[in-house]
C-alpha cells in the first residue's frame, strides 16, 4: 500500500491550512457527527440562501484525512445550488466507497479527487466521509425547514 496515494500533497495542504474552519453566523442548521471508532468529531453548520449553499462552517478534532476533507468540502460547496451540492456529496461518497474502482470525476469533485486514494484504505473511509455526511445531514434538515439540532 503506497502511503503517497493516501497522503496526497493536496490533502496535506488542506490539513495544514484548512479553508473555512470555525463556526460562523448566520446558519440554519448545526449538526455534530462522531466517528465512534476513533472518537473524531465534527460540528458543522449550514447556511442556505436562495436555494444555494451560502456557507458551510465547521469545527472539530480529527486526523489529517478528516480535517482536510472538511476543508475541501467547504471550498467545493459554498455557492453551489442545494441539488448540485447533494449530488456532489453522492459522487464523493461513491468514490470513497469504491475501493479504488471508480475513476474520480474532477469536474464534479475538484480538490476532492485527492481523496480517491483513501478508498484503498478501508480503515480511513469513515475519516474522509465524516464531514460530508454531516453536511448532507445538516443540508437536508435545512431544506426541510429545520432549525438547530
Amino acid at each position, binding site marked *: *500500500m*503506497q*502511503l503517497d496515494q*493516501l*497522503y496526497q500533497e493536496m490533502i*496535506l495542504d488542506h*490539513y495544514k491550512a484548512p479553508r473555512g474552519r470555525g463556526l460562523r453566523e448566520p446558519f440554519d442548521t448545526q449538526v455534530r457527527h462522531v466517528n465512534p*471508532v*476513533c*472518537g*473524531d*468529531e465534527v460540528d458543522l453548520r449550514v447556511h442556505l440562501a436562495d436555494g444555494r449553499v451560502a456557507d458551510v462552517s465547521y469545527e472539530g*478534532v*480529527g*486526523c*489529517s*484525512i478528516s*480535517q482536510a476533507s472538511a476543508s475541501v468540502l467547504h471550498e467545493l460547496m459554498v455557492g453551489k445550488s442545494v441539488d448540485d451540492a447533494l449530488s456532489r456529496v453522492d459522487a464523493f461518497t461513491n468514490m470513497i466507497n469504491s475501493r479504488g474502482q471508480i475513476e474520480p470525476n474532477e469536474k464534479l469533485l475538484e480538490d476532492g479527487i485527492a481523496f480517491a486514494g483513501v478508498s484503498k*484504505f478501508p480503515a*480511513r473511509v469513515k*475519516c474522509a466521509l465524516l464531514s460530508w455526511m454531516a453536511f448532507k445531514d445538516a443540508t437536508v434538515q435545512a431544506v426541510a425547514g429545520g432549525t438547530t439540532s
Partner: protein
Amino acid sequence: MTATPVGLPKASERHRVTPPAGMPQYDDMPRFDVDKVRGHFPILDREVNGHRLVYLDSGNTSQKPRQVLEALREHFELHNGNVARSVHTLGTEATAAYEGARAKVATFIGATSPDEVVFTKNSTEAINLVAYSFLNASLGKGGDPHVGGADQSRFRLGPGDEIVISEMEHHSNIVPWQLLCERTGATLRWFGITDEGRLDESNVDELITERTKLVSIVLVSNILGTANATTRIHDRAREVGSLFMLDASQAVPHRPMDVVGYDVDFIAFTGHKMCAPTGIGVLWGRRELLEAMPPFLGGGSMIETVEMTGSTFAGPPMRFEAGTPPIAEAVGLGAAVDYLSAIGMGAIAWHEKELTTYALDALQTVPGLRIFGPRVPVGRAGTISFDLAGIHPHDVGQVLDAEGVQVRVGHHCARPTCVRFGVAAMTRASLYLYNTTDEIDALVRGLERVRGVFA
C-alpha cells in the same frame, strides 16, 4: 593495565563478592531466548508493506505460537466431539480436553479448584456475567429461588447501594456497571487518575464505604500501562464488606497471577491476549460466591433438571456455561497456558520490564513525543501510549503501518482516560514476549518518518 582502586576487589574477583542476603541480583532474574521464542510464531516471518512485520499491538490481541496452532489442529483432526453429553469416544476425549484446559487455567492463576474457572467468550462477557448475576439477584422476588436456597443478598442492588470503579477502566469494566446501576437504582462511583497516570487513591475511604457492594478495578491499564497497586483498595473493600473484582485482561498474559495472593473475589481475562485463540475468556470467582450466584444465560448444559413449570440449575462452573462452549478455543487456551508456563511467567515479566525500560528511554528521545501514563518502568507494564507533536494518532498509525510497524490508535476503548488527559485519541505500542529492542528502534525510526510527513 589500569590500577584497581583501593578497597575494591580486582575485576577477576568481583563475582566472588557475596551480595547482602535476600538482595535480588541482576543475573538471578529468569530469562529466555527471544530469538528462539520468535521462531515459535510463524506470523513474525511475514512482511507488511515491504517491511519485516514489527508487531507492537499485543495489548489488542497477541500472536499465536505453533504450539497453540498445533493443539487446535490436533483437536479438530483427532478429537472433535461435543462436551459433557456424549458417551462415545470422541465426546469423551473432547470433554477431557476441555476440562483439562480448565484445570490448566486454574493452576496458572493459582485457583484452589478448576470449578472456580468459568469459560466465557472474552473478558467483556466475564464482567457482564457478574453484572447480570447482580441484576438477576436484584429482581423482585429475590432472583432465582432454585439456586440451592443460597443467600443472594450480597448480589442484591438497589437505591443507596454503590459500585466503585475507576476512570482508568476499559469500557468493558465501565458500561456493564453503568447499565446495572441504571437498572437497579444503585450509584456508580470511581477513582480518578493522577497526572502521572496512576490511580488517585487519596479519597479511598470516601469512595469505598458501607454502601459499596462491589469494587471492580483494572489491574493493568490497557491504555496507560499502569500496574495498579491494589492493597489499599482491597483492604478498604474488605473493611466495609464489599466484593472485590479485578479486570486482569492485561495482567494475566504478562505476569504471574495468584488469585489467592490477591485475595480477590473475581477476576476476568481473555485468551486471545495470551497466545490463545479469540472466543475464549475466563471468569474466575471464589467458589462460595459462584455457588450463590443466579445464572446469566439459560439453556443447555447449565441445568440440573428441567420441567415445563421451571428448572433447577447445575453448580458452577456449568451453571454459567449455557450451550455448546468454545471447545477448541478452550483447548487452545490450555495449550497457550502450557506454552507460557514452560517459558515462565516470571521470565516473561522480566523480559517485558527490560523492553519497557528501553522503550521509555527510546521514545523520550523523539522530539515532540509525550508519554501518557508512568514514564518510569516501575509499577507499569509494556503498554505505552503517547502523543506525537499533536499529529493525529490515525495519521501516526498509518505512516507506521507503511513501515511495517503495527500499533493501535484511537481511544482504546478507554475514552474517559483520553478525556482525562485532554486528547481524543492516543497512539499505543504494546509489548509481549516475542518483541525485541530492534523492534522498538523500528518504531522510533517510523516516528521520525511520521514527523517528516506531517510536521
